[in-house]
């Protein structure tokens, strides 16, 4: 808490601020309330009587003086940039390990380190450069500006072992004092070495993603292909509408291989890539070679269907032409036949036209949903009723497995059902419903919760995090480190309420109080 560490401009600014503040206070002091009197004759005499302000006299304006002292003291503390200690006593060390590189890399490392250090408590953070030995660029409590001054002093550059540097820092602290080392380094660390570090030492990597800092994904997702084959998906991704994009700089990779398809512009900063093979794998969205987001694509295998002997020809044809379906002889996902074990059972007209066994505890509640899913609303039930002479209805029952029973006769020539648009739709939907392969739509927008198969880059890099649920807000802010700092215990909305801010508010309040008291004549 001293001006000695301020830059020249900072000192000048501080002095000017102090001068302006005192000038304002002085203005308050001399702004007397003017009163016209018949004569000043007696006031002259009175002033003469009290002119001598000697120490033995009682101080006349103690409260006003105390108020002024409080304001001046707070101003002083305000200008000395007060900082709170780290809440848990953690020491932060920003370690720069690019000092054996060229000048540009050295400067880049320093800037990265300063950027990180600016987010850390002043009194518990230091910046250390690892060259042939450890050089302290900024000690705890010092201003960050001094780092560049010391850096310009230019000590001898030399290479050093990163492990040696880390071990040295780890050995400086005891077990009861946690140390967070923020590593700015180009070299990788073996996971075994990281695991072997003492428990009170935590390692954080600081990376530079400043190049595309302003270009961030806002949405990323896939859906079943609208026009393409069953085993393809359409991928869409979008950027902030306000971002100025160079569309030619966007590229896609599937399993680290450039994708054949080109992203098409759908709307402003919204892009789509149709018919990407859904065979698993990771799709990466890159901007200027920087990975902004990644997406795990589904592996959409065909639905295996077993067809029993005697299945109506029209039904067989409809199933075989379905690209999502593969007719197999055994071990299929769906069996089509006549017996009760069949998933799609062809029945006589003794039962209801459509009987659906749903794996739902409340089948009646699921009725409308099932009718929609199976496209039964598209069936012309009136016509079927006229042709059959029976009531055509849909029954839903509870079961431990999905099953659909339908009149076999509907697929014969006695009904015009097979000629209707509803028939292939019903068959296709039924096969998918029975195989439990709904239309896939995996989509994430900012602030939504999504399934774990949509990742941001950093999460993929850290395999231990895979499989968890993450907020997609991270899509808009790629994290800077492989392992980021733990979340601060302070609520986010209080971040701006630093001691510095509090002092400012307090000083403003005291100045306002003094002004009000002065205006009301409570203080001289």
């Amino acid at each position, binding site marked *: 808490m001293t001006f000695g560490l301020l830059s020249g401009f900072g000192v000048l600014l501080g002095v000017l601020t102090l001068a302006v503040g005192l000038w304002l206070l002085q203005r308050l002091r001399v702004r007397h*309330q*003017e*009163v016209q009197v018949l*004569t000043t*004759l007696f006031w002259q005499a*009175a*002033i003469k009587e*009290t002119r001598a302000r000697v120490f033995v006299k009682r101080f006349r304006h103690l409260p006003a003086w105390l108020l002024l002292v409080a304001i001046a003291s707070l101003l002083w503390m305000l200008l000395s940039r007060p900082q709170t200690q780290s809440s848990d006593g953690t020491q932060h060390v920003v370690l720069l390990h690019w000092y054996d590189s060229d000048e540009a890399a050295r400067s880049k490392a320093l800037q990265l380190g300063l950027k990180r250090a600016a987010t850390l408590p002043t009194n518990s953070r230091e910046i250390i450069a690892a060259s042939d030995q450890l050089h302290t660029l900024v000690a705890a409590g010092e201003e960050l500006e001094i780092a560049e001054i010391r850096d310009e002093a230019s000590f001898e550059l030399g290479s050093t072992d990163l492990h040696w540097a880390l071990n040295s820092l780890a050995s400086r602290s005891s077990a009861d004092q946690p140390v967070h080392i923020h590593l700015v380094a180009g070299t990788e660390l073996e996971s075994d070495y990281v695991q072997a570090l003492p428990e009170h030492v935590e390692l954080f990597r600081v990376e530079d993603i400043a190049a595309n800092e302003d270009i961030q994904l806002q949405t990323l997702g896939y859906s079943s292909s609208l026009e393409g084959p069953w085993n393809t998906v359409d991928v869409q991704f979008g950027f902030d509408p306000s971002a100025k994009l160079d569309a030619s700089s966007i590229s896609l990779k599937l399993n680290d291989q450039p994708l054949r398809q080109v992203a098409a512009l759908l709307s402003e900063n919204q892009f789509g890539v149709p018919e990407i093979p859904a065979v698993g794998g990771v799709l990466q969205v890159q901007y200027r070679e920087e990975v902004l987001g990644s997406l795990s694509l589904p592996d959409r295998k065909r639905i295996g269907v077993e067809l029993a002997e005697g299945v109506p020809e029209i039904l067989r044809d409809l199933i075989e032409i379905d690209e999502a379906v593969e007719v197999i002889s055994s071990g299929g996902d769906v069996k089509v036949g006549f017996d009760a074990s069949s998933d799609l059972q062809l029945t006589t007209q003794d039962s209801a036209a459509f009987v659906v066994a749903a794996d739902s505890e409340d089948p009646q509640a699921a009725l409308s949903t099932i009718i929609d899913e199976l496209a039964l609303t598209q069936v012309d039930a009136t016509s079927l009723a006229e042709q059959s002479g029976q009531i055509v209805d849909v029954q839903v029952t509870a079961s431990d497995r999905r099953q659909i029973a339908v009149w076999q006769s509907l697929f014969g020539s006695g009904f015009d059902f097979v000629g209707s648009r509803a028939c292939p739709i019903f068959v296709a939907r039924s096969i998918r419903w029975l195989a439990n392969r709904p239309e896939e739509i995996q989509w994430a927008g900012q602030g939504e919760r999504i399934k774990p198969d949509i990742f941001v880059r950093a999460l993929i890099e850290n395999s231990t995090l895979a499989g968890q649920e993450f907020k997609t807000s991270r899509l808009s802010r790629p994290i800077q480190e492989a392992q980021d700092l733990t979340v601060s215990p302070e609520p986010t909305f209080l971040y701006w309420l630093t001691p510095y801010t509090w002092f400012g508010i307090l000083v403003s309040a005291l100045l306002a109080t003094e002004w009000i008291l002065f205006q009301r*004549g409570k203080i*001289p």
Partner: protein
Amino acid sequence: MNDPFDLLNPRFLEKARALRIVARRVAPAGRWAEHRSRERGQGMEFRDYRPYSEGDELKSIDWNVYRRLGRLVVRLFEEMEDLPIYLLPDLSQSMWQEDPPRAVTAMKVCVALASIGLDQHDRVGLFPFGEELESTLRPTSGRGRLSLIAQALTRSGEAAKVRSSGTDLGGAMARFRGFGLREGLLAIVSDFFDPHGIESMMTELKRTRHRPLLIAIGRPEDRLPQLAGDVRVRDCETGDVRDVSVSPEVLRSYTEAYDAHFDRLLDFATSRRGGFLTLDNGADVMQQMASMFEGGRYVA
């Protein structure tokens, strides 16, 4: 008749009839009036004997004394003469600051004194002053002259109100002394707030044989101002400003200075066998004057 200051208010004048000014001995060479003169003359009231000297009228010899004592003495009688009353109202700017203005009160006091004097066949002269003294009306007598005096006061008052002059009591008295007027009652009606002080005024008055009647017009706030905190007081006449941090101690010093100022005026008037009267500008003028002049209590 133009009377913006309501100087000739009948009720006011009616009350003035009860007031009187009694003179001990007026200076000789005056006109016949109601006051005893220092001159022994032809009056009705016996005053003294003195030895006969050549030239005395024979009818003034007291023959009864000569028959018993064999000495020639002449009888002397009281000479009754008038008392010149010189009215000096202060019409400086400080007298116009309030409502009602102190200058108007001063003019009413002058009208009241003029009314008393004219009723007693005294001569009354009018000399308003501020920084300068004017000889507005040379001494005149006659009960019918009151309106003349009121008109002269009104003219002087209207002019002074516009002129906004300062106060110079010493200069005014010096100029008045230069007129060489007959010894009389010198009534100065003022707030006595002279930035130059009152020393020069008292010095000039000591050089005359006039009997001073000092009538100070003020308000209680003059002595106990209702001010607090840091104030900048500005003199309404001179523009002089003083920054004052008003505290009980300062107020006490102020009051002491104020009291000392008027105590000196009182002491001076007493020492000159004159009179001193303070009038509250916010109270009834005639009622306050009655305390001094009613029934001839005041002897000039």
